[in-house]
């Protein structure tokens, strides 16, 4: 069975998962700060993956995190998710630690975070149980919202990479988090599917979600992301409102040329 078509703005709105009545995001509108990172250091042995990151991030905005391999993007995302404990410094999400704010955070990692031997619906049913979500309605809704069919009985291990990424996104948004942390959501996804995924993310941002996406495919987010955060050697070196900002490296440009 083929996955359903992607009609995200409509489907996502139909989910009515705590969506505000009007879009809250706009570059010109003032946004409240809901994530504060202070002097964040993360060391793995003698290697410092994050070297004193300090930043504040506004609510309801789409933040694209860019940088070369080893720049600290994934570590920053894992620290925000509460998976990497800071060696020094602190993270406050709505004034709480990431662990205390876990119900507000949806995390999509580079691996799928799904059981290969179970179908998508079985996976989501299990994860819904972890968040105390009863019944199948919610799981079916999010699977449809990412363009897949909840009736698909095939185990996730037999999905294509694109379908797996979508299902992984469905798992991340299952509990209707206010903050989405996405680690390379477009990797190994064809251009068409990646664009559809971007459309879905835009609709989520417009519905008030705060989104962080680590990606090497920055041009996909041009005109969609509100802010591009440039990381290098474990530090945020620049924050721009365009992918063509001053820190765009040759490496990123080359990858975009290949994708687009």
């Amino acid at each position, binding site marked *: 069975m083929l996955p359903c078509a992607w009609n995200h703005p409509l489907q996502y709105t139909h989910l009515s998962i705590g969506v505000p009545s009007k879009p809250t995001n706009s570059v010109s509108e003032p946004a409240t700060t809901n994530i504060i990172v202070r002097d964040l250091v993360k060391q793995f042995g003698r290697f410092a993956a994050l070297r004193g990151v300090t930043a504040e991030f506004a609510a309801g905005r789409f933040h694209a995190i860019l940088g070369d391999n080893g720049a600290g993007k994934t570590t920053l995302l894992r620290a925000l998710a509460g*998976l*990497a404990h800071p060696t020094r410094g602190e993270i406050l999400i709505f004034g709480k630690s990431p662990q205390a704010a876990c119900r507000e955070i949806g995390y999509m990692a580079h*691996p799928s*975070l799904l*059981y290969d*031997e179970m179908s998508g619906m079985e996976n989501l049913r299990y994860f819904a149980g*972890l*968040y105390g979500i009863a019944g199948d309605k919610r799981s079916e809704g999010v699977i449809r919202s990412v363009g897949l069919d909840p009736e698909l009985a095939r185990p996730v291990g037999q999905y294509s990479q694109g379908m797996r990424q979508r299902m992984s996104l469905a798992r991340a948004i299952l509990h209707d988090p206010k903050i989405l942390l996405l680690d390379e959501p477009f990797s190994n996804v064809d251009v068409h599917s990646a664009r559809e995924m971007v459309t879905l993310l835009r609709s989520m941002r417009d519905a008030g979600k705060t989104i962080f996406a680590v990606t090497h495919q920055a041009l996909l987010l041009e005109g969609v992301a509100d802010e591009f955060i440039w990381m290098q050697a474990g530090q945020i070196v620049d924050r721009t409102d365009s992918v063509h900002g001053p820190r765009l490296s040759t490496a990123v440009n080359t990858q975009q040329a290949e994708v687009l």
Partner: protein
Amino acid sequence: MNEASSSLLSVTFATLKKDIRLEWRSKDALNSMLFFSLLVVVIFSFSFDPLAEESRLIVGGLVWVAFLFAAVVALNQTWARELRNQVLDAYRVSPAPANALFLAKVLGNFIFVIVLEALMTPLFVIFYNLHVLGPAWQLIPLALLGTWALVVNGTFFAAMSLRTRNRELMLPLLLFPISIPAVLGMVAGTTAVLTGDNPAHFYIVLLLTYDVVFTTACLGLFETILHAE
């Protein structure tokens, strides 16, 4: 029942159901355990060819050697499937209680090892010409308490060695020394029942105490293990 207890029970049940479903589909642990136990039964029966009297003296040890090593196979599998696709991270970022995951894993492993014991016991009886001289019903609490002792510590130490490079080697190194009192209780208790020479009550109480102490300690420490990097 308060919300926390209800959450603990519902997540434990959901995780147990998921683990049984995954094992039913892959049969990774059950097949390996069965194969290993069968090897032990057959090879030792060929080597010893014991009389009924001798059997009663050695089978207590043989049975638990087979089940102990077979359990280690299951214990390694139980966390290995959580590492594929880093699924454990999805649990770690959720508000689900850490102990629910631990309890579900312990219960799942307990069920798998008990199923193995139920399948292998008739083979031990046939191959070693066993006739129980003591009160046979005492084998049931010995098996249940002994198996719980193995899986509760095994599940905990398997989780502890999860992120180590040689985790399949680390598990027996950590598990076997700390299981010595329980293994002594299992072997001596089983032999006591088989020979009918001594009462096995002492060993049952020993295993019960061991189970209570280590279950409590593991439950108290598991959250730290789960969230360790």
